């Protein structure tokens, strides 16, 4: 202790520093204070473990708990009822010796079906949000960092030709499409070559005119995407595409990136004016390193918050789609289609509606609470400063 003090005295400006805490420690300390967020995280971890257990227990050719096993004599048994061993063949007897959450109208074990559905909800939530966050960060990052760059008219022309070419080649006229595609590439090369030579001529003024900035382009695209009622957009796309869990994830992901884009753009716009970014530029750090090492980590807080709440929304959307019959095709169980099947028996067998409903409610609520808590914890103004 004494030697410590002496050493500090050598540095006059030194204050006794508080014991160092890493970011993670600090995070958990603040999380611990926020009871609701902590409960949200606990439920989320429980849900995660349940979903993983569900995947292990209900998949394979001879699953431990078979969600698709039909026991017609045992239909619509209430939760916690014992199976009637006289009417069941040995392989039909449930492993747990009890129908923990009852059976549905085909005598299938709802507990097993709920477990299977948990994995669907988890993957849909995470993959969809993963897609939307990646797209969002990419678009928002470009809009925020390169936003002031102007797009030249010739580039737009080339892009239109290329897209038209690809579209035609795949849909209607392969030869015409390839011709347009080639024309686009030629124009691209020609414009690059001719730029200097054409300088000053009226043609060049038209061809190389600066039209709109990258920022405007991306943000207007965001506005357009936000104009669509996204649930109906998803319904349309799902109706056109073959029904599968992956299509649903991708579609949900590709219709929910706009919020992240706005967040990331806003963060980038403020970060690029910060001195530490200027300092990195002055040190000759490459712009990609600036973006990935300095800007994205500092822009992640709001993205993380919106992603957490986004997972809840994605789970809800998937449940809604399954409820309407557009989701994961049967016999695969999801919480949405258990709910949907159960609504016909809501007076005879209310557990078929209430169990998945409650599960969705609890999971979505826990994600929302955790997301809100995260927002408070990651807000630097609420942190203690030393």
């Amino acid at each position, binding site marked *: 202790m004494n030697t410590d003090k002496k050493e500090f005295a050598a540095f006059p*400006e030194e204050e006794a520093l508080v014991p160092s805490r890493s970011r993670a420690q600090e995070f958990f300390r603040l999380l611990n204070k926020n009871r609701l967020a902590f409960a949200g995280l606990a439920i989320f971890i429980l849900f995660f473990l349940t979903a993983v257990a569900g995947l292990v227990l209900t998949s394979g050719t001879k699953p431990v708990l078979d969600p698709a096993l039909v026991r017609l004599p045992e239909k619509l048994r209430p939760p916690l009822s014992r199976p009637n061993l006289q009417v069941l063949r040995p392989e039909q007897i449930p492993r747990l010796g009890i129908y923990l959450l009852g059976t549905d109208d085909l005598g299938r074990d709802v507990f097993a079906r709920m477990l299977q559905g948990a994995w669907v909800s988890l993957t849909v939530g995470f993959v969809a949000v993963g897609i939307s966050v990646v797209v969002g960060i990419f678009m928002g990052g470009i809009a925020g960092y390169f936003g002031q760059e102007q797009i030249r008219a010739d580039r737009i022309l080339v892009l239109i030709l290329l897209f038209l070419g690809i579209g035609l080649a795949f849909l209607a006229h392969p030869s015409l499409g390839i011709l347009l595609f080639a024309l686009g590439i030629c124009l691209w090369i020609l414009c690059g070559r001719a730029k200097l030579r054409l300088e000053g001529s009226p043609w060049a003024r038209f061809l190389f005119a600066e039209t709109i900035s990258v920022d405007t382009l991306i943000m207007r695209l965001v506005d357009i995407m936000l104009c669509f009622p996204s649930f109906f957009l998803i319904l349309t796309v799902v109706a056109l595409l073959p029904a599968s869990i992956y299509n649903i994830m991708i579609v949900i992901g590709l219709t929910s990136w706009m919020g992240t884009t706005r967040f990331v753009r806003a963060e980038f716009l403020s970060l690029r004016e910060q*001195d*530490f970014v200027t300092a990195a530029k*002055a040190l000759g750090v490459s712009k990609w390193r600036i973006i990935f090492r*300095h800007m994205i980590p500092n822009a992640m807080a709001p993205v993380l918050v919106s992603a957490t709440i986004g997972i809840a929304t994605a789970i809800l959307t998937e449940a809604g789609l399954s409820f309407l019959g557009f989701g994961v095709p049967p016999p695969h169980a999801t919480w949405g289609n258990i709910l949907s099947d159960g609504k016909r028996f809501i007076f005879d067998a209310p557990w078929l509606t209430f169990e998945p409903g409650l599960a969705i409610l609890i999971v979505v609520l826990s994600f929302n609470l955790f997301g809100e808590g995260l927002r408070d914890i990651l807000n*630097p103004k609420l942190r203690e400063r030393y």
Partner: protein
Amino acid sequence: MALLEVQNLKKYFPVKKGVLSRSVGEVRAVDGVSFSLEKGETLGVVGESGCGKTTVGRCILRLIEPTSGEVIFNGRNLLQLGGEELRRIRASLQIIFQDPFSSLDPRMTVGQIIAEPIKNHLNVSKAEVRDRVAYLMERVGLHPEQMGRYPHEFSGGQHQRIGIARALALNPLAIVCDEPVSALDVSIQAQVMNLLAEIQEEMNLSYIFIAHDLSVVEHISDRVAVMYLGRIVETATDRDLYENPQHPYTQALLSAIPIPDPEIRRQKIILKGDVPSPLEPPSGCSFHTRCPERKEICTKERPAFKDLGGGHRVACHLR
């Protein structure tokens, strides 16, 4: 030959308005600034807020792209360099920032912050980087053991020391100090100033020292340039400027320095009005709207930058 030679540097920021963002005018933030900096010398740049001091500093490093002019550093015009060449030359021309809190990445440890330029420019092993960082931290008065800590665990003065260590990491020839002490407590200001002076002596560095506080500049500068509305109105050696200010604006600035002695009475020159808008700078001498000694000619002709001998130059019709 001078280490750094700035010739007629200009930076006009376009002012855009409307849906089509048409240019409706320009802010003349820096309007024809010329000066030179010798090796080992400190040039102080002073002036009130908005006179373009910071813009000059950043234009020299090309952190802001100048509109026109020349910046000749070590015999090469920085404004004509691009890509890799510019990146390499940036190692020897560094900057220290005003705001100690925003100039360090909050998500990197102090060790990582100081190591970044080393890793970026030199191909050295991890152990060497560590040694160098430890040396630099010791040099600026920080404990090398605190390498693994985050910026928010340090005070403002320590932040500034970290910023200095980062700027020194590549053994630069010149450093632009952009008001490095104006955000600090007075007692800590002195420590940081002394540190800068020590390092300068040790490494034979040149500083461009930007500040709005004349007493701070007096402490460290060899020569001082006074800026007003994007132009340099007077340059002189440190002593010459403080003892014999020529330009009315410099005189007004100097008379505003408080003297810590209540017995002393002196004539204060109080300027009336505000700095004119750099959107439409006044005709003739840009200071004529506030000058106590204004004459007819001041409103019409822009004064030349006259040499009064001994390196004392002033842009005023009356001298």
